[in-house]
């Protein structure tokens, strides 16, 4: 049985933002998964009563995400991950200041060891139990398979849209898919299919998550003649799982999910984190990228510390954009203009 919010008459959501949380698993347990992209409007500072009401020293993405989900009546529960310390501490604040049930999922930092895989699988099991405690039901193999298939198809479909859509619209499509697991038809979405001119400069994005408001950045780049050919931010296709091995799904569902998510998604927090460098270098080479934009949030150490290495590893120029939760300022616009000018 879904836990229904009668006032809104929609099933309540199990909300998360990390790409390492498989929505299929939550859906298979009979609940509504919602991979939320933070709106970026509620970063806490000065909002008394919000779980994160810290003046300085916290990542604005984390604080706005937590404040948004805990103040949204449609939230049934929230899932945070241990991929960074800020999110880990965010879970403490939720437990202390909010009644929203919070599941802190341990995502190992080491990868490629049997032990790390085992730890992730154990967390999936625990997540399943958490879903049951929220009123979910057991993940029957047939239902899991059909949900996985549906997600897989929709995921391929939404990814195939990259070529037709502007980067901003593509990011919004990925956001819609993350929230609903579905793909909109163009009419419903009201998407612009404006394609860049053939003279557009191929540019890639890499970095942490972006709030919905920050998707405007893509449009600014497009206005300056860029074609965003890959989105390696946490909000982009880099954070998508690989395809599921459906032959093994009924026999060992947790293992298949582990392979598709934990073992496949490259991220900066992994130790060692070579995988994300290989991913980026491959994308840059294959798509003949001429410049890379590096997205990070103020107080995000894990991305910040790697900026130097990314710059070092690339044979093309890199533009570092540090986001602080607010709207893009004039200086950033000017830097983007100068960067694009340099790439032409």
């Amino acid at each position, binding site marked *: 049985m879904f836990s229904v919010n009668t006032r809104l008459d929609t099933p309540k959501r199990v909300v998360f933002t990390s790409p390492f949380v498989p929505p299929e698993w939550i859906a298979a347990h009979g609940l509504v998964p919602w991979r939320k992209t933070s709106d970026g409007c509620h970063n806490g500072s000065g909002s008394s009563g919000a779980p994160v009401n810290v003046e*300085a020293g916290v990542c604005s993405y984390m604080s706005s995400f937590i404040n948004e989900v805990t103040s949204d009546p449609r939230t049934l529960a929230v899932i945070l991950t*241990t991929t960074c310390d*800020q999110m880990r501490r965010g879970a403490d604040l939720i437990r202390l200041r909010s009644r929203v049930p919070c599941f802190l999922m341990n995502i190992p930092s080491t990868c490629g060891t049997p032990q790390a895989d085992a730890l992730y699988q154990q967390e999936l099991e625990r997540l399943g139990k958490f879903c049951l405690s929220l009123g979910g039901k057991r993940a029957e193999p047939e239902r899991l398979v059909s949900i996985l298939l549906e997600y897989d198809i929709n995921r391929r479909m939404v990814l195939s849209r990259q070529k037709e859509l502007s980067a901003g619209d593509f990011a919004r499509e990925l956001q819609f898919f993350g929230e609903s697991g579905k793909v909109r038809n163009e009419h419903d979405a009201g998407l612009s299919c404006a394609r860049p001119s053939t003279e557009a400069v191929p540019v890639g994005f890499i970095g942490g998550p972006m709030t919905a408001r920050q998707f405007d950045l893509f449009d600014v780049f497009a206005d300056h003649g860029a074609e965003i050919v890959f989105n390696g931010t946490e909000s982009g296709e880099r954070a998508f799982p690989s395809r599921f091995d459906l032959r093994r799904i009924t026999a060992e569902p947790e293992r298949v999910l582990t392979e598709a998510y934990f073992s496949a998604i490259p991220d900066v927090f992994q130790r060692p984190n070579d995988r994300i460098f290989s991913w980026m270098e491959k994308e840059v080479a294959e798509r003949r990228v001429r410049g890379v934009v590096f997205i990070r949030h103020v107080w995000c150490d894990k991305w*910040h*510390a*790697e900026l130097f290495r990314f710059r070092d590893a690339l044979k093309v120029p890199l533009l570092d954009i540090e986001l602080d939760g607010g709207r893009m300022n004039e200086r950033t616009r000017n830097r983007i203009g100068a960067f694009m000018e340099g790439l032409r």
Partner: protein
Amino acid sequence: MIEAPLQISLEAWDEAYESSGAFIGRETCYGGSLGRHVKDGNTRLKHLLFDNSFAALNLWNFLLTEEDRLYRARYEGKILVGTMKDLGTVPVIAYAFPDVVAFYPDGAWWIPCLMEADEELLSIADNLGVNDSFCPVRAMLGAFVSGEHFPVPDILVCSVGATCDDFSAIAQRVEGLGHPLLWWEIPHRREPGAREAAVALPGGTKACVDQVEAVMVELDRVICALSDKAGVKLTDSMLSESIVHANKVRACLMELRHVVFTAKTAPLPSLELLVAEMMGLHYCSDRREVLSVLSGLLETVKRRVDAGVGFQGPEAVKVFWVNPVADLRVMNMLEESGGRICGTEYLFTHALDLIPTDLPAREALARVALADPMAGSALDRAARICNDIEKFKAEAVIISRIPGASHCALEGEVIREVVAACKNVPVLEIDVPSMCDTFQETLQTRLGALVETVREQRKGR
């Protein structure tokens, strides 16, 4: 007759050292005047006040000669293990091997303070893109590049997972510079579920058995790597013997803390206690000598307590201190403001708690690793702090924030809120960068105000 305890300047110490024959015959190979360490670049010493006992002199000398010991170990052909982040667990394994010396490159954390913002070290980190938005541990990166503050270890072992972002990020940069790291995982310690098999950890928290087993597997990887490096197979009895030794150090520190926190008048300044506590982590690279240094200090403290002498009077305000200070000078400021230390939580309580001896050695160490306050929820940290406030009758809490540290802003909130809700004591949060000179006055005023608040409260009782 026992000498009156005093906090004296470096100059006064050096004068006393030169003019008194009291130290002749008691000196160790690392002994000598304190002033000589200034010539090695530790200029912050000139601005500190020190306990005037021989035991404290010994403590400082032992601390400040660690680099010499490491180079000597290298010269003698010993294996140097750079153990990173776990604070207290891997050294117990490393010292179980013959001819292995373990140390924490993390100790570079204090270099910006001791060497008064060593421009070179920090500018190396700056040039590598690790600026002051990171905590002082960025000095470690500079130290690896300059190769000047410790010998490059033969093997580097770093815990990761439930750790701070600063360290994990900077350690990855160390690896990126061409120093291979063995990463081992400490999962986030969670509250065991109602039907989950759980075990008690040192310090009072709990962990589920699955997590303990996972850490044991990770420690096995560490043991294998160290065995390969040392060319010696580690037996259970070697490991158990190392635990027994570690427990001697921990027991000594535990007693020292207890005596200091519960004495009528403070028998040891907060700065020397902080230095002593740090020695529990990796024995300052000499596990035999550390015991003699700490026992000497404990003896001195006990003698003072028996004689009823101490610093300040019994009216000093009892303060519980949370987090290590990036500038050691601030600990002096506590006493200057009329406070005394009565409880500490410097993020390594798991290196002070006794290691269980009624368990297989690997399991005991896995439990210790999981007991790391950083591995669990800040609510667990806050709970332990509340217990200790009660135990040591602390009247106020100071949470010192570490500049740039990823965990401080949020953890500070949690601890402040929990302490305020559970204990009727004032809580002060202060920012302590590696050099506090420019706002020393403001800090002093804030500490003074806290002390005054407590004194007012006392009147009301």
